[in-house]
């Protein structure tokens, strides 16, 4: 295994008013594996945390929590996973001491940086404008003590040829190059120390399609020639389809689904992946798409349980509805569609996290009926477990939310959705 991450978290501190500090949970409990010589795609919308994962994997950022094992032989990895499952801390530590990236000192990291490298999104800002290209390409070789200065210069010329640029470019400066040429230079720099793992962070997003195609073909050729493992981070699903073998789909800091590229892209299982795939415009293809409502959530106060549930078209009882969400939808219905049905004084209040109080009306059966009628359209109402008439008003109690885990599906992929829990959809089916 080239690299394996378990329970990776990255929380960024956010300074609020009055010196309070909250954290933005950019990446939460992400597991990811890349085999040797494998290309793995990581797709998601902007803000889903995919770049943060990429940076954590090579320790450009230090993860808040989790474990990253680098270049670990498969038997040890199997043992590690077994120990992890059993909770055998001593054994875990012993293996982690040898392979964990997080326990490496900075001098050890320097030698590891020969074996991993990264290509950044924007080739206009990732190249130092005051350096000649030969210096740009040679820098990683010198800083990781991969080879001597003289050797680095020779190799820089070789690499320029390798990525399809003429050798005399070595004396040029980045501003003399077009976007596509710059990205070629960035790739030459990244492969200069013969890395085993390459993180590609949106390598073609800043480029035009005609140039993007050139870069994609270059990456494909390099990968076949040198057998480099790659993590391809992108929002462009077609790019992943072109290069990768496995795909991870991220949403709001969590992995939603992963598996074989063909299966995930052609037959997505997770409701989010389904919506994502149907949103991708394909030239010359008219199709009905499932359009998601709303926007990705705020990660300072992320939604409970499944982070996708507020936008999910098939969310059900235990997906994580909070009293506030239900109260807001109920209020909207009472003020709109059901205006006047329960009198003008009806007031919806969220009491704590799991109960809602409706004041100003005593018609509990009416509310019960409303919930029953609207629950298919207004998904949050599904979470209402019981409607009771109390002296202080009508009290609605909600189902306890269940945190989804990665549930393996029959064809070898894993889906983080309660619908795929073994016997998990029973509640949905019974309801």
């Amino acid at each position, binding site marked *: 295994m080239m690299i394996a991450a378990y329970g990776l978290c990255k929380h960024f501190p956010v300074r609020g008013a009055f010196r309070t500090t909250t954290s933005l949970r950019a990446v939460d409990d992400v597991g990811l594996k890349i085999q040797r010589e494998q290309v793995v795609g990581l797709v998601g*919308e902007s803000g889903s945390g995919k770049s943060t994962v990429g940076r954590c994997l090579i320790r450009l950022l230090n993860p808040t929590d989790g474990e990253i094992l680098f270049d670990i032989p498969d038997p040890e990895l199997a043992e590690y996973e077994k120990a992890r499952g059993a909770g055998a801390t001593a054994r875990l530590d012993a293996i982690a001491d040898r392979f964990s990236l997080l326990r490496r000192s900075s001098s050890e990291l320097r030698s590891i940086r020969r074996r991993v490298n990264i290509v950044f999104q924007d080739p206009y800002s990732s190249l130092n404008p005051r350096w000649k290209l030969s210096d740009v390409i040679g820098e990683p070789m010198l800083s990781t003590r991969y080879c001597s200065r003289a050797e680095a210069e020779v190799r820089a010329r070789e690499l320029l040829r390798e990525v399809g640029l003429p050798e005399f470019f070595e004396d040029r400066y980045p501003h003399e190059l077009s976007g596509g040429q710059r990205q070629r230079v960035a790739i030459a720099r990244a492969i200069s120390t013969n890395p085993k793992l390459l993180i590609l962070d949106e390598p073609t997003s800043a480029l035009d*399609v005609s140039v993007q*195609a050139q870069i994609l073909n270059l990456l494909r050729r390099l990968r076949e020639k040198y057998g480099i493992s790659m993590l391809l981070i992108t929002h462009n699903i077609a790019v992943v*389809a072109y290069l990768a073998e496995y795909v991870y789909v991220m949403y709001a800091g969590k992995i939603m689904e992963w598996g074989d590229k063909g299966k995930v892209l052609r037959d997505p299982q997770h409701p989010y992946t389904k919506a994502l795939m*149907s*949103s991708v415009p394909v030239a010359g293809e008219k199709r009905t798409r499932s359009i998601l409502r709303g*926007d990705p959530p705020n990660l300072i106060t992320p939604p409970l349980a499944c982070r996708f549930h507020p936008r999910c078209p098939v969310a059900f009882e235990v997906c994580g509805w909070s009293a506030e969400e239900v109260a807001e939808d109920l209020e909207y219905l009472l003020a709109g*569609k059901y*205006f*006047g049905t329960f009198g003008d004084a009806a007031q919806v209040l969220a009491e704590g996290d799991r109960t809602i109080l409706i004041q100003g009306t005593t018609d509990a059966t009416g509310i019960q009926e409303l919930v029953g009628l609207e629950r298919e359209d207004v998904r949050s109402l599904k979470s209402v477990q019981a409607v009771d008439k109390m002296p202080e008003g009508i009290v609605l109690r909600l189902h306890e939310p269940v945190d989804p885990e990665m549930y393996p599906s029959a064809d070898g992929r894993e889906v983080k959705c309660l619908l795929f829990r073994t016997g998990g959809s029973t509640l949905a089916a019974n309801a």
Partner: protein
Amino acid sequence: MSDALAIRDVHVQFHTRRGVYKALNGVNLRLRRGEVLGIAGESGCGKTTMGLAVMSLLPRNASIPRGQVIFDNKDLVNLPREYSERVGDRFNPKENERILRRVGKAMTRIRGQRISMVFQEPMTSLNPVLPVGFQVAETIYVHNPALLARRVLARSKATPSLMQDLLRLLDQTHGDEAAVTEFAADHGLPGIEEQALFVWRREDVHVSRKEKAIRSLSGQSMNPLERNIIVAVVKAGSIPPQFARVPILSRVVRRVLVKEGYRKALELLTSLGIHHAERVVKMYPHELSGGMRQRVVIAIALANNPEIVIMDEPTSAVDVTVQAQILDLVKRIRTSVSASFIVISHDLAVLAEVSDRIAIMYAGRIVEVSSVDEILHHPLHPYTQMLISAIPTLEAKPVEGIKGEVPDMRDPPGGCAFHPRCPFAFEKCLSIVPIDFRQGTDQLVACWLYEGK
């Protein structure tokens, strides 16, 4: 039927310290009435410059040595062109700026009113210190104050019994627009019809509440001063100069009409699929998500019922799921609005989704125009063919980049600008600029390969 807009042989050059960039080199394009025309091309091919030229929003260092933009039988670029013709090489940005200022004054009657534009980045095209509702309201207040005045006046004149009649009419005709407009005209209440119809057509509101809302349109009292001013505005069709000049009066006009503009903004935003528009109109741009901001910008563009809407990369700054929402919205508004659209994008798949015809640009010239199906399935120009084969698909078909680089527009190649990258180029391509050849019924291609075919 005549075209909504005709762009004829437009050349635009940018004069910079590093030389003269020939951004547009003879663009010919006709926008038909009611159609959605997509413009595709790589960055730097002049898509946006063309949009700006139509809007007369080019910067002061841009000259227009040749060409016409014909809108409503008028040439929108004649002044800058005449200036460029007169001075030739001795182009002076300062003098040009004076010309542009004059053009700008003349354009206020057209820009934002009859031709409007949605810019690329919604965050930068909204003012961060003003509520979004105000920004929509202001657009209407500046261009069409009489519309707002009519709406206020109609509400103050309406009586409860008239509104009861209107409700009955709405119920009988199921919200027929013509009938309601006629009713409003007959009873001297022009301006009430769109307000009533808006409430009637809302889907998220219960019928009993709609009735209450329509009844409440009546009987709003106004003080005599306001009333006299509003009547004068309605009569004059715009704000009469005596009110505009006297500060105390102009403030009254502004207060009443901008307040009304908020109501209109609320209607517009709701029709563009924004929930809780009552809250959204009071928010500032930074409080809105990318998709919402884009909707607000579209609302501003549509506020004055323009004849032409130019959308410059409407979905480039948003995520793919939000992009799907916006595309769906664009498809919906084109059926409900009688405008023609120009949609500019680098993404052919996005254009294919919303357009009727697509024009492909390369190096400041249109190389091919035709219907969406023809462009995608039978592209004629070598550039179009190569562009389409460079787009990666979900099926992971092999992609082919276009060799070489986009030409330096300070010194573009002679003849066909694509010839250095074209595998089919022959002698003629090197020296003579290709003209448009008509292929089939509705396909134009600027390539010598199709001469005499």
